[in-house]
């Protein structure tokens, strides 16, 4: 039973860490560290969710979950089960495998759907987007709405709409393009993927969606940081403000869309030139490593 308690403690630790991460503001100064921490929490939580029912079912073996599973497999092969291994215990082990299967299947489905959507999008871009000398290396869509995005992949595409070209000046546009290229280079789509998959698997849990939103915001901040390495902060902040303002101009009062608060947060963040919190960051990474090591060590022993 001690191992089941281990997994339960690990889940609790994950939940607590997620609460702290969600409430912390230092994460905005070190988005990359925070992203790694979120991923560690997600991974540890998934493994613990698989391990908890398994370890409960395998209590009779009184060994770490990994070797207990091996012992169960060989016992099943010989057709003899130790005392205390009944249908209920086998059922718990099956539930553990079931959770693992669902998590894996959801991730595969999510990847599949994403790749298909990206291929479709890429095909359409090939047919209707154009190059423009004002934005070298990017594609332009002739549409008056303002949008700037990155289609990730092995051969990524950075796309801006004609509305964006009208909205931003040269310096702002350059900052936005660097921001988009950072998304492409660092494969932020893959960073977000596990969280998107988790939202698919557990759509009724609010905190899963919250975690997804936090990571999405951190990814934007990370790309903002890459952009401000090359461009003046004022350009990037200006671009963000213009996006926010043109939205305000057209939108009637109280009809703001998703992610609006995030825009303001990002602008404010660019105004402050804080150093990344080294000690806090290192502590957070150590906690994250421990979180992952706990369930992994139980499976490997």
């Amino acid at each position, binding site marked *: 039973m001690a191992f089941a308690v281990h997994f339960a403690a690990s889940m609790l630790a994950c939940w607590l860490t997620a609460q702290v991460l969600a409430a912390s503001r230092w994460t905005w100064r070190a988005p990359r560290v925070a992203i790694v921490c979120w991923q560690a929490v997600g991974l540890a939580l998934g493994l613990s969710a698989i391990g908890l029912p398994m370890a409960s079912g395998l209590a009779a073996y009184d060994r770490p979950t990994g070797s207990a599973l091996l012992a169960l497999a060989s016992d099943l092969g010989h057709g003899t089960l130790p005392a205390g291994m009944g249908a209920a215990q086998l059922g718990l082990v099956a539930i553990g495998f079931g959770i693992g299967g669902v998590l894996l299947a959801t991730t595969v489905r*999510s990847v599949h*759907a*994403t790749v298909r*959507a*990206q291929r479709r*999008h890429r*095909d*359409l*871009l*090939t*047919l*209707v*987007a*154009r*190059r423009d000398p004002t934005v070298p290396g990017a*594609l332009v*869509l*002739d*549409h008056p*709405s*303002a*949008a*700037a*995005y*990155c*289609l*990730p992949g092995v*051969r990524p595409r950075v*796309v801006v*709409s*004609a*509305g964006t070209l009208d*909205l931003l000046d040269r310096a702002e546009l350059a900052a*936005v393009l660097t*921001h*988009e290229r950072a*998304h*492409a280079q660092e494969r*932020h*789509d893959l960073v*977000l*993927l596990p969280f*998107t998959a988790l*939202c*698919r698997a557990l759509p009724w849990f609010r905190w899963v969606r919250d975690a997804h939103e936090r990571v999405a915001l951190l*990814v*934007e901040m990370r*790309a903002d940081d890459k952009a401000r390495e090359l461009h003046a902060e004022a350009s990037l902040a200006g*671009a963000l403000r213009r*996006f*926010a303002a*043109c*939205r305000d101009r*057209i*939108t009637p009062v109280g*009809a703001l*869309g*998703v*992610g609006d608060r995030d*825009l303001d947060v990002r602008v404010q963040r660019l105004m402050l030139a804080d150093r990344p919190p080294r000690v806090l960051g290192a502590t957070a990474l150590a906690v994250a490593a421990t979180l992952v090591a706990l369930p992994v060590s139980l499976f490997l022993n």
Partner: protein
Amino acid sequence: MTRLGDLERAVMDVLWDSVPAASGGVTVREVADALDGRELAYTTVMTVLDRLAGKGMVQREREGRAWRYRAAASREAHIAQLMLDALDLGGSRDAALVRFARSVTGTEADVLRAALGAQAGRTDRVDDPRAGRARRADEATDR
């Protein structure tokens, strides 16, 4: 851009820009003739049209012994579709794109969706100020 992507684009431009809206589509020969400057083999044009039909970009109907092809949707409808994706209004739950920021209002979203719904085929692009800009798109190339 791959040569194939380039060809697909050129063929779609013919279907969008040179085919009268009322006509029932064009034959492979007519497309090949319109792409005169490129000196493409008839079979090449046919292959490209087949690929486009496979992707759902082109519809075809048999007429006697030949197929007649026409664009499945207008250029504007495709752009509207891409913008819906870009502005995260497409209803997809997957992270297919990573966005800088989006600026969109309820009205804009309705207009985009209407553009998709209404556009079964070609539209009259004469009044559309963006059409000229889009038509210059031929020079656009890909990585």
